[in-house]
């Protein structure tokens, strides 16, 4: 797996803290939904910083897209979110990971549980499902601080109006936003996951991604509900310098 040359073709704001970078990558071999890439930035003095970012785009997308959330005082994310412009270049390697992946045609309902920007690899799965015209029962529960922190808000509302069950919970909001009138306003709990469904024993493939405390809690609740621990795939992100 070698480092490739990547150039930013477009920068798309998503929220006040997150942007999507649309990339042209030399010799990109394609990817599977759920995979990530490593990015390496090199300063003029040779100092290098490396971080991992999830791929947001479907494998069918003509260009690779990464959504990056700014971590305060983060070394790499602050550059990518605040400074990076079309035409900027850096090194990238990937696609990486074979555990936290999903593709059209797999059996069993698809259940996605996201905390904050943990939504990124999961939206890649939903975009892939749509591009492949896959009819798998798909459900998403997203936990975010406020409605303004919700990534891909319009797209999620459109998916929810279609054949994906999209549920939202806002941990620091008083009321649901207009396009998600059924949103909860509390931290993730067992009742929420029970309502999201499907019931244990239906062969669901469950993907949970977010900050470590969120993932631990969601995975614990899912197993407590009766889901097979091995059907719950997790991907945690934590403070690695941003």
């Amino acid at each position: 797996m070698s480092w490739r040359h990547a150039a930013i073709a477009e920068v798309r704001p998503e929220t006040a803290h997150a942007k999507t970078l649309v990339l042209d990558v030399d010799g990109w071999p394609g990817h599977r939904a759920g995979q990530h890439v490593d990015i390496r930035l090199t300063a003029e003095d040779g100092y290098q910083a490396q971080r991992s970012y999830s791929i947001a785009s479907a494998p069918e997308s003509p260009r690779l897209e990464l959504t990056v959330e700014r971590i305060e005082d983060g070394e790499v994310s602050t550059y990518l979110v605040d400074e990076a412009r079309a035409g900027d270049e850096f090194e990238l390697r990937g696609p990486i990971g074979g555990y936290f992946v999903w593709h059209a045609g797999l059996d069993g309902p698809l259940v996605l549980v996201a905390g904050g920007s943990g939504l990124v690899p999961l939206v890649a799965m939903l975009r892939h499902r749509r591009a492949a015209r896959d009819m798998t029962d798909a459900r998403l529960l997203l936990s975010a601080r406020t409605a303004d922190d919700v990534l891909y808000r319009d797209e999620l509302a459109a998916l929810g109006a279609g054949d994906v069950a999209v549920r939202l919970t806002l941990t620091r909001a008083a009321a649901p936003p207009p396009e998600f009138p059924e949103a909860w306003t509390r931290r993730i709990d067992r009742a929420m996951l029970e309502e999201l469904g499907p019931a244990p024993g239906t062969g669901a493939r469950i993907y949970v991604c977010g900050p470590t405390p969120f993932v631990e809690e969601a995975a614990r609740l899912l197993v407590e509900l009766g889901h097979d621990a091995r059907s719950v795939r997790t991907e945690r992100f934590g403070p690695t310098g941003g």
Partner: protein
Amino acid sequence: MHTDGNAIAGVLEEVFARDVTATDRVCQSCRARRAIGAHRLFRGAGMVLRCPACGDIAAAIVAVEQGYAVSIRGTWLFK
């Protein structure tokens, strides 16, 4: 705060020349069989992967000049 094996999938691929996050490992201590991606990752001077069931060490990886020093334990089931 730990993360998990997915967070060092790139480093693991450098070491093993293939993805191993989907590879199951049987723990030498508790016999639990779990994918490497499901293992807990602790970062310090190096990277330590631990069994998600019992916490015993699955791998210790330290970056050294031009590569990595790697110690692995348990049975890794490559397919």
